[in-house]
């Protein structure tokens, strides 16, 4: 167990600055709120800018495939900032899940696809329920016969804006991953009304849709596990970013709201809650950095740092969003205030990629702390 680097490097701080500036211009909370009940809940123009001008859609894609060749540490910083902006872009599905899966697959189709994702010309996702935790058994909800995929997958993230999807399926040789164009025939996408208005989920129905196999048997299992572990680790940084936003805007609010002739931020009960929240967010950050560093460092222990970060961050971000709402009082309960966007996002990330209990079970297994 070597000591992880828990700080941010200079390049990481630069990345943060650029992304934050763009989001401040293009994606303030009122813009996100206005969009979320519209016909275009995703801001694909923003995603195009992130992919094009900033080149961050393919942050971890090698340069020869049109990416930035960065590591999970930079990807985590991007996740922090997108979490901080509750940005309605297909980051998790395309830049994390699909990209990670495709990068691990040796086929030329996979390389082509990942290049398209990196360039922003296409959007991808992976056909697993959003709640699937690392360590889950390989899904059996889709079967493939002669390249024809049949089955149903619930709560697939970013499905409605995706062009292609990596589908875990069982075929004649056992577990496999298929790459599927979502415009193929035999594909049915059913959107679900989501609790999180800033990131959508949908049901993918496959009825003999034709995909290309990009991984099989053990390799398919490994790719999917690696993908889920990476996504869970990166999600911890998204949660840290959102938690920090909730803390920062609450601090801002309690300095401007007067009751009883005083800023409410001068009341000890409020101060102590925010101090505790600050301690929680600081701790979340340490665990999220630990996970990102483990993902970026080959060969070390990854499962425990990722499980630790998720076990800590997924409840901390919900606490942060709940405290944000409570300390805003009545105004936070109104539709026009973005508090509910933060709460919906926080809650959905808590359920995404495994609940805290699920991640604690990983720690129990890996850390030698068996159940009763």
């Amino acid at each position, binding site marked *: 167990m070597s000591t992880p680097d828990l700080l941010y490097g200079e390049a990481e701080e630069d990345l943060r600055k650029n992304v934050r500036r763009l989001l401040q211009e293009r994606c303030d909370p009122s813009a996100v709120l206005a969009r979320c009940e519209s016909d275009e809940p995703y801001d694909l123009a923003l995603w195009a800018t992130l992919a094009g001008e900033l080149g961050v859609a393919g942050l971890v894609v090698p340069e020869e495939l049109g990416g930035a060749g960065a590591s999970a540490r930079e990807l985590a910083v991007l996740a922090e900032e997108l979490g901080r902006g509750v940005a309605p872009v297909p980051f998790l599905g395309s830049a994390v899940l699909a990209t990670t899966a495709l990068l691990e697959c040796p086929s030329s189709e996979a390389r082509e696809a990942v290049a398209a994702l990196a360039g922003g010309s296409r959007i991808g996702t992976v056909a697993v329920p959003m*709640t699937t935790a690392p360590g889950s058994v390989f899904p059996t909800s889709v079967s493939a016969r002669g390249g024809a995929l049949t089955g149903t997958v619930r709560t697939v993230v970013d499905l409605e804006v995706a062009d292609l999807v990596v589908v875990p399926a069982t075929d004649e040789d056992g577990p496999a991953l298929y790459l599927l164009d979502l415009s193929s025939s035999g594909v049915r996408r059913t959107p679900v009304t*989501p609790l999180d208005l800033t990131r959508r989920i949908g049901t993918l129905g496959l009825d003999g849709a034709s995909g290309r196999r990009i991984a099989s048997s053990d390799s398919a299992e490994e790719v999917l596990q690696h993908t889920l572990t990476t996504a869970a680790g990166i999600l911890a940084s998204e949660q840290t970013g959102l938690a920090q936003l909730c803390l920062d805007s609450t601090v801002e609010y309690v300095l401007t709201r007067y009751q009883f002739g005083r800023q409410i931020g001068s009341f000890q009960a409020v101060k102590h809650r925010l101090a505790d929240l600050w301690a929680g967010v600081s701790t979340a950050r340490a665990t999220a950095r630990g996970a990102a560093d483990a993902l970026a460092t080959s060969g070390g222990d990854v499962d425990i740092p990722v499980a630790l970060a998720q076990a800590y961050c997924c409840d901390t971000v919900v606490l942060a969003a709940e405290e944000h709402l409570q300390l805003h009082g*009545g105004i936070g309960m109104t539709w026009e205030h973005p508090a509910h966007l933060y709460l919906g996002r926080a809650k959905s990330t808590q359920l995404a990629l495994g609940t805290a209990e699920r991640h604690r079970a990983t720690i129990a297994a890996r850390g030698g702390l068996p159940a009763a």
Partner: protein
Amino acid sequence: MITADELRDRVREFLSHHDPGELDRLEFLRARFDAGLAWVHYPPGFGGLDAARALQPVVDEEFAAADAPDNDPRSNGIGLGMAAPTILQHGSDEQRHRFLRPLWTGEEVWCQLFSEPGAGSDLAALSTRAVRDGDDWVVDGQKVWTSLAHTARWALLVARTDPGVPKHRGLTYFVCDMTAPGVEVRPLRQITGEAEFNEVFFSGVRIPDSQRLGEVGQGWQVAMSTLMNERVAIGGGNTAREDGMIGVVADTWRQRPELRTPGMHDRLLRLWVEAEATRLTGERLRQQLAAGAPGPEGSAVKLAFARLNQSISGFETELLADEGLEYDDWTMRRPEVTDMTARGPGYRYLRAKGNSIEGGTSEVLRNVIAERVLGLPAEPRVDKDVAWKELPR
């Protein structure tokens, strides 16, 4: 004082002359009011018989047994729970005669206009102005978080009549006609997508001085007695085990074994214990009230109720996992009543967040318990002796 048996006799006597199967519902209710069998602890002439408050169930049970119509108390909760006792305590006889009967029968629904955007926890800081003009007062300002404003005929209104004195001293209490010109009611959409509440705007609304309750400048005292009655009402229900949100998740747990995990089991049982313990605390409060010795446990019950509803609904979304990612419907609607167990888990999760804010935040409630129940000192105040208009805001 009148006994339970005497009361029972009175109801039977009344029913022998007023057949609920025959009479028009409203006429039946009016007659019941006039017979002093509405709220029996009210004075004669105002729907009561000066009986013990604890005897009300005796009367209600007799009428229910006779299949008599009731006054649909859920549709006029503020009227019955807050307006009536305030009018009884602070109103003139003329006001009592005008308002109490149609209030009790449900002919006239009431709402309460206290909170403002700038005056939530700090209610006394409110800035809606009432300026005297002849026999009237002219009201301008804005209220918020008003239930039933769109169905109410009358409102309990507190407004500032003197900005030049410290905030608690410059308030006056009125009964406001919600149909008066210049009153505008707009639905207020909440984080659930619904609009349970309203914003109410006043532009030059005229209220006759005869609709003032209490003296000019005594509005704070009158408002406090209104809120006191609200707190007595909370937690007084005689509920059964597993009523409310805990019952919803307990049923899900029983019906869907595939969702169960050891950690969730432990959490479910902790919540069950907390819910049942809180129910008993409310029951104990009810028994104290019935025995004529109301305790301060209502605040404990409201605190626990907020925490519980939030914990249980958060637990429920985690238990349901994929379903917890969904929401039933974001459409803006105007629900008739608030039912925490209706609709989906996402709704419950979001709606419960209001429980620690509405009707006094949990923070304010803890202050109240600390100061009024435990006798701890108030914090140093910076707003007590300053003219309202000089306060920072």
